[in-house]
């Protein structure tokens, strides 16, 4: 077996040093009833690299790769071009096969890029401090609600109808089992929601998304003021982080916690994971943050260096009093994010955002010109909602049959709600071309 260096001769010699007759002696603590003499049955034996690769090519052949079809799906995961440098960098073994930097003297590489990552996140979001990443935007949002509950010692979280439906489900699940009360507003496809009147003295936080799940762009400054007047926190979620290249950052609107899905920068679609959660807050809430934090310090020679810090918030020290049970984060995806953003820089990142907005704008014009199709958004970044004259799910299936990945029927994520049955969510990024948009429009005309 190519991964196992020990030879039979090695094994015999090692057993003799140990003083054991066979390896079975080393498993003598396993109860007899659970000892398997032979290998586990019903499973194939080892295979060479060639055979393994073929098996995966066979899986891949049964899928439609977005690179081979007109593609317009978003809804919390966005198809962007990732420069080759990013993937090369994250595959360097010193990054790929290192672990959590418990020994800072020999993990300065990881610690410095995480420090740079934290700084980039604060700049994008307009916040004071950021952690070294969460699993993804969805789990990070639930953690943000828990953090707000801790800070305010309240348990009523108002959840916007513009928040991604799966993020809403995760908050509901967390609430059910961890014991707090979310108040979920109904799906806000038109972008008309105003939660200011709902904030009261029992509210721990309000969770909104910008741009919303349906694509609307909103200013939450007044909502932030209302939250603060009532002693509640405003949590702003961003699922398309590229939008921050163009839009007023949540920090300038008065957000107390900002959570972003960072996948768009550096990380491929990957069928939903692993992604990277960005998590930022105000200085005053620093010690209530979940997750790892990297801080600057000096070494014994007085040279600048970086360490994991404020660890007493974490499970491995505080145990049952920890701010979160999180341990592993998304280190390598954070590296992909930070390498890509460093390549882009100010000029590249803002231009990328401009291109996304322009492409989506073109698509919106083309699609809304189809008879019977109504654009629901007066504002959007790179994603918007249209109302079709018939249910969207079969339309999307019909498009797929023509090898066009033509958006997300909202009913897939919000089932059993007639008000969203005809809604189609469409996204266009810098990867969209006229050669992709025109077939979509033609096919839509055909199937509607």
């Amino acid at each position, binding site marked *: 077996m190519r991964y196992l260096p020990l030879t039979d001769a090695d094994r015999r010699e090692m057993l003799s040093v140990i003083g054991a007759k066979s390896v079975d002696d080393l498993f003598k603590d396993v109860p007899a009833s659970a000892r398997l003499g032979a290998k586990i049955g019903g499973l194939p034996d080892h295979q060479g690299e060639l055979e393994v690769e073929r098996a995966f090519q066979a899986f891949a052949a049964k899928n439609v790769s977005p690179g081979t079809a007109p593609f317009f799906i978003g809804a919390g995961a966005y198809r962007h071009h990732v420069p080759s440098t990013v993937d090369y960098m994250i595959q360097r073994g010193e*990054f790929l096969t290192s672990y959590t930097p418990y020994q800072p003297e020999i993990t300065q590489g990881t610690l410095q890029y995480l420090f740079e990552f934290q700084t980039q996140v604060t700049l994008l979001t307009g916040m004071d401090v950021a952690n070294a990443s969460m699993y993804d935007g969805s789990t990070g949002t639930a953690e943000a609600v828990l953090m707000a509950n801790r800070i305010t010692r309240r348990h009523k979280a108002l959840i916007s109808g513009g928040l991604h439906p799966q993020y809403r489900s995760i908050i509901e699940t967390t609430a059910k089992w961890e014991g707090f009360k979310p108040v979920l507003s109904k799906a806000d496809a038109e972008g008309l929601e105003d939660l200011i009147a709902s904030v009261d003295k029992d509210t721990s936080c309000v969770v909104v998304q910008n741009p919303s799940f349906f694509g609307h762009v909103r200013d939450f400054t007044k909502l932030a003021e209302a939250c603060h007047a009532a002693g509640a926190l405003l949590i702003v979620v961003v699922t398309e982080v590229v939008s921050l290249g163009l839009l007023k950052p949540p920090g300038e609107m008065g957000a107390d916690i900002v959570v972003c899905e960072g996948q768009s920068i550096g990380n491929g679609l990957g069928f939903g994971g692993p992604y990277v959660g960005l998590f930022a807050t105000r200085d005053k809430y620093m010690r209530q943050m979940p997750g790892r934090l990297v801080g600057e310090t000096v070494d014994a020679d007085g040279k600048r260096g970086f360490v994991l810090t404020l660890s007493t918030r974490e499970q491995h020290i505080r145990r049952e009093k920890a701010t979160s049970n999180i341990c592993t984060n998304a280190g390598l995806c954070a590296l992909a994010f930070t390498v890509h953003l460093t*390549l882009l820089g100010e000029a590249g990142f803002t231009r990328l955002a401009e291109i996304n907005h322009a492409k989506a704008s073109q698509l919106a014009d083309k699609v809304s010109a189809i008879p019977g199709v109504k654009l629901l958004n007066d504002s959007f970044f790179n994603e918007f909602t249209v109302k079709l004259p018939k249910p969207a799910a079969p339309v999307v299936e019909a498009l797929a049959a023509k090898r066009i990945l033509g958006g997300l029927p909202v009913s897939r994520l919000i089932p059993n709600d007639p008000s969203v049955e005809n809604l189609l969510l469409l996204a266009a990024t810098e990867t969209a071309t006229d050669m992709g948009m025109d077939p979509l429009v033609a096919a839509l005309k055909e199937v509607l």
Partner: protein
Amino acid sequence: MVQSLDRSQGRAGGVAAGAASNHGTYTGNRALQIEEPLIFEMGQPGRCGVDLPEPPKVKDRLNGLRRAGTIGLPGLSEPQVVQHYTRLSQKNYAIDMGVYPLGSCTMKHNPRINEKVARLAGIGDLHPLQPVSTVQGALELIDRLAHWLKTLTGMPAVAMSPAAGAHGEMCGMMAIAAALEAKGERAQRKVVLAPESAHGTNPATAAALGFTVKPIPANDRGRVDLAALKAALGPDVAAIMLTNPNTCGLFESEIVEISKAVHDAGAYFYCDGANFNAIVGRVRPGDLGIDCMHINLHKTFSTPHGGGGPGAGPVVLSAALAPYAPYPWIVKDGDTWRVAEDGAKVDGTPLGRLKAFHGQMGMFTRALAYIMSHGADGLKQVAEDAVLSANYVMAALKDVMSPAFEGPCMHEALFDDSFLKDTGVSTLDFAKAMIDEGYHPMTMYFPLVVHGAMLIEPTESQAKEDLDQFIGALRSLTERAKTGTAAEEFKAAPRFSPRRRLDETLAARKPILRWRPSNNPPEGDPMKQAAE
């Protein structure tokens, strides 16, 4: 020390002869060890590492919310970016460089075929919400891995979506809470039992779900004290959380009795699967009577540790807990695959949803490639070689170091610090001296139940020659420590690493968590002037 600044690169330079902290070089560099500023100290406006076309001119539809000022991101060209991260990478220790015996973390070889297949077009580039008719192969892949995990553990069900081990713990404990609720016992059973040697995630998870954590004592053999456990079990107990093999590297030899006692008391058995590598392919946890167990794919199944993630933590479930598994899961209808998502009509009462989309697909792909490469025969050999290697290290060091417990260990060897008594050298000093010998230290001061603990997990990935050199290095360090005159030398370690010991007190007292133009780098820092 005279320094001048080359503004075009943001790097320090100057005559630094005699400056110890700069190694007496002009640059402050030392051959392959190159001092590296932060990206914010080297960027220039007008420089960019990508070429993007002019955006098409369109009407702005941003609702008047265009960003007013600049973001503050630095501009670097592509070669600068490549050099920056390459230099940073060279300040890291990694599995690819040598023995990385970090106990409880299973730092095994990360095969590159895993990376290749995860990036195949048609796998790595799929959108999670594509029509299911266009992702049949992806759903089949997830189901194939699920089949392996169920078969290897001897359990009837698996929840694939948790993003990491701790997330899997949350999933498993939520399933237990859901099962208790279905029986009308959730209000009454509020206690979770866990040994003091447990990973910190166990009590953190239980507490988050509103359970009170009660410690159960260990016996002098490092295992759960069965009598004490039985005494602690009662109508108020919801579950036991137990790692097996445990965090002392030992198999819980009375585990069948433990699970029987737990079930007789009406409670559930959560098994922390962090140490599954010791038994994979050789023992099925399902045969031990557990109710659920998370599997860290980045430990046992070689998905890369990536500097702290991403991981994946699928949870296998017993028949009693399976009805509560969270959304989503994969279903086969005839010849087609579909996804059971929120709101779908299903048997059972799912506990909800833990993560967007379908879980850590990229990790599933890598883990399945690893599993298929090994097969049932190879995985059994993995467990045997991992256990053999740990016992070999233990046997070769037991005369000079102090094993915490007698008898064979599983995949990790645990020592206490009694062999360092009166030497003035602590576990921390000993670990830092290992760095100068070219090794990543073992896990230190965990588990908490052993004084000055040193937990060594060599994994199955090291050749015997490399284990022998590692053993030789530890024996040499032990000898040096025991001279009784080497304490200062140990306290000065590491001396040859990119940085020497870092001031963690300073970092925590005055947290600097981001770069700011006003951050004042400390005296003696070669980058000081670069930041100005």
